[in-house]
């Protein structure tokens, strides 16, 4: 299994410990990671897609063309990168005129888009290509006795006809790969509610976004007793971590550690938490201690 590793912008700049976790953990599962040298922003929906569609498609195909040159499919952790790259490819494959226009532009940079490489989300690859059995087999430590809730990235669910791999209304793959690490995954009513962190909402009306997300945290707290929240999207990771601090300013104490899946996977494989899980707002030390102290 060879995949081009598309990191996006946030991960290498703000949460590089996740990058480290991916780079360490995935090869152990037999995933060979190829760097997509010279990749740029996917682009994020708030950038070129909101200003110029052709420019936006040109940037996406810039990124995809790199994978094409290397002959690999792309694996992505960030939900919105996944969505942006995948929707761009779908649009270009469907619309010949746009494809031509984009190739004209790419031509300036000496690149070409043919649309061969497929963009896959990490959950998809782990569940469907690696499989839960293999994950359970390779880990050295497990999460037995820990309770988790999971956050499915919206951008991997909708629109399902373009980017769905799981059941869009009742996803289960993230849950199952977390369970493969030994944790108990608990459902709660608002499990599928968007974290609220992406796009303009949280930026332009932060207080309203906090209120929206608080409903999710209230439900989580009332209905489950999670030791951690497991996400697999950089925005979910950053936002669901940070917002707990803002909620605590309003007197609501949640303090539920948030991990990216790659991080707990790497921890279970025995990698150094200082490398793979060192950056967070809500302290994660206790959980990390439990994991690193646990016997496989």
């Amino acid at each position, binding site marked *: 299994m060879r995949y081009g590793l598309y990191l996006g*912008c*946030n991960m*290498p*700049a*703000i949460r*590089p*410990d996740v*990058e*480290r976790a991916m*780079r360490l953990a995935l090869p152990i599962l037999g995933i060979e990671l190829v*760097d*997509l*040298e*010279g*990749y*740029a*922003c996917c*682009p*994020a*929906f*708030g*950038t*070129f*897609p*909101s*200003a*110029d*569609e052709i*420019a936006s498609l*040109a*940037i996406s195909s*810039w990124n995809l063309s790199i994978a094409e040159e290397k002959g690999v499919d792309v694996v992505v952790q960030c939900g*919105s990168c996944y969505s942006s790259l995948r929707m761009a490819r779908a649009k270009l494959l469907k*619309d010949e005129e*746009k494809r031509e226009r984009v190739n004209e*532009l790419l031509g*300036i*940079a*000496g690149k070409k888009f043919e649309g061969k490489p497929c963009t896959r989300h990490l959950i998809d690859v782990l569940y469907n290509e690696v499989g839960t059995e293999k994950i359970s087999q390779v880990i050295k430590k497990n999460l037995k006795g820990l309770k988790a809730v999971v956050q499915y990235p*919206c*951008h991997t*669910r*909708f*629109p399902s006809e373009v980017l769905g791999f799981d059941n869009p209304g009742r996803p289960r793959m993230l849950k199952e790969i977390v369970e493969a690490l030994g944790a108990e995954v608990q459902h709660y009513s608002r499990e599928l509610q*968007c974290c*609220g*962190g*992406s*796009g*303009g*909402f949280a930026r*332009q*009306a932060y207080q*309203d*976004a906090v*209120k*929206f997300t608080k409903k999710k945290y209230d439900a989580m707290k009332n209905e489950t007793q999670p030791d951690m929240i497991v996400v697999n999207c950089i925005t979910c990771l950053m936002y669901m971590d940070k917002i707990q601090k803002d909620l605590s300013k309003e007197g609501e104490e949640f303090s539920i550690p948030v991990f990216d899946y790659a991080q707990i996977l790497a921890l279970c494989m025995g990698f150094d938490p*200082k*490398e793979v899980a*060192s950056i967070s707002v809500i302290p994660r030390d206790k959980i990390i201690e439990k994991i690193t102290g646990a016997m496989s």
Partner: protein
Amino acid sequence: MIDLTKANHHLWKEIMEEDAGDIRRCFNCGTCVSGCPAAEAETPLMIRRLVRMVLLGLEEKLLEDGTPWMCVTCTACEEMCPMGVKPFEVGLAIRRWQTRKDETYIPLSTTEVFQTGHTQPVEKVGELRRSLGLPEIPPTIAKFTELLKKFQAMLRETEIVKNNDYMFKE
């Protein structure tokens, strides 16, 4: 009172560019808003209302409306819309139309992506990265100045950059 007779009946074509086909199917069921996180804002994003403004041709009203920029891009509206209207895409199209009409709408992040290839300073966190055992600069466009030049040259040929070149600095 809004005068529908004097509205711009071709606005939907202007906004939707080539992808105009499906927006007119909207029958105002409200599905798009019912699943929208940003509809809970004090000044809510009501995508149905925006679609309505596009279809009725309420140009001025729409140009003043900042709510399209509140979208969280979760795309639930597009998934659930029974008429295949793709409200998410309509929202993006409205943003693009607004940026065409009024350059103050152009997101600054666009110029950042033009300038650095990224929305975040991936090249400025070397120390942190090194401490984790990662290369100081990730293998992105930030690492390859030649590529960045080509990238910018490519974008120079796009409408947005051509029309607003003063904003896009190398």
